[in-house]
């Protein structure tokens, strides 16, 4: 007897970053496949998820040019908005919805915001930094756009596992600050490896005529780190959580200024 197998179109996918599985649901199988491609390496094998988002796709061309992100708390839910997306998330029901056009960038932004909110509750944060694991220890290279995050990542030797070239995920795990790989990338245009390791130190990047490491302490270290931490929610409670996390982090993890020349020799200092 002939058997007909019907390939079922996917309607959801679970993306797990930092051990936080989030289910993304869409009625458009093409968009689900796009998410699967974008977050390859971060797709959960399990069907379990901590949160769920229903994604409603708007017709192309409905975006506005507004590039400012607004994240506000209203009536028991987080509202997230930019010209290219509108999203809401209710932590108590562990569910939310996203309105956007069919592109991976809007969803990427929503996920970054959601992770900053989740991490803040647990003493962690996202920070503008590339990061890599070498000899079982993680190193963060932090700076604003143009500081050299991607350059350092590109110069990494083969024994270094890249976690990201753009946004580092800092989690407080068993009392230790840990760097976790993310699919959030910059110019490198490739996801980091889905690995984690205790953070050895943070380097605040500066380009200069020679490779040099200078320890930073006190207010300089806090100011440098806070300047690169992602703050989306203009919300007193969350600003305090992240502020306190930055102080705690600096009290436990060394922060240095790394002045470097853009060639591979800089990695001789990163051991």
């Amino acid at each position: 007897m002939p058997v007909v197998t019907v390939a079922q179109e996917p309607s959801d996918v679970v993306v797990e970053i930092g051990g936080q599985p989030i289910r993304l649901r869409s009625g458009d199988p093409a968009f689900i496949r796009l998410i699967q491609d974008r977050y390859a390496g971060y797709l959960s094998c399990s069907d379990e998820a901590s949160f769920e988002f229903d994604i409603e796709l708007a017709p192309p061309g409905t975006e506005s040019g507004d590039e400012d992100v607004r994240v506000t708390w209203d009536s028991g839910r987080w509202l997230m908005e930019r010209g290219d997306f509108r999203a809401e998330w209710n932590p108590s029901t562990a569910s939310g919805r996203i309105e956007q056009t069919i592109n991976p960038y809007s969803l990427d932004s929503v996920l970054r915001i959601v992770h900053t909110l989740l991490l803040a509750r647990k003493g962690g944060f996202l920070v503008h930094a590339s990061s890599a694991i070498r000899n079982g220890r993680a190193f963060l290279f932090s700076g604003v756009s143009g500081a050299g995050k991607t350059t350092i990542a590109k110069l990494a030797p083969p024994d270094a596992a890249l976690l990201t070239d753009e946004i580092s995920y800092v989690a407080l795990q068993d009392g230790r600050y840990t760097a976790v790989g993310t699919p959030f990338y910059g110019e490198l245009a490739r996801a980091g490896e889905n690995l984690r390791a205790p953070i050895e130190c943070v380097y605040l990047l500066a380009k200069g005529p020679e490779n040099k490491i200078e320890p930073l302490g006190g207010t300089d270290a806090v100011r440098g780190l806070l300047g690169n931490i992602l703050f989306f929610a203009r919300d007193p409670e969350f600003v305090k959580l992240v502020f306190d996390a930055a102080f705690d982090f600096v009290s436990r993890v060394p922060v240095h200024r790394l002045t470097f020349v853009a060639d591979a020799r800089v990695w001789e200092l990163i051991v």
Partner: protein
Amino acid sequence: MNNKRYVARSTAIAARVLGDETMVMSATNSTLFTLDEVATVIWESADGATPLEEIVANKICTQYDVTPEIALRDAEGLVEELAEHGLVLLSDRPIAQSALASGGTK
């Protein structure tokens, strides 16, 4: 006429003392401020109940080599700047803690 000025730290901030300095972050726009040693003394004394001139007389003039007039002028300049950024509240009468409530938690 009451010329006294009262200063109270806003609740919409996050602050930590580090050595002699205090770092203050506005919770409404994430702007970071660093207060030096003298500014830290005023900041820590800004309880809304103690007049600024009393803070200056008791905490600044007794510890630093400065005249009361100059110290008060500088202190007024400082608290006005902090108030412009929403880090403190200023009033010509004592400021109740209830007036500092910043609203909602989640």
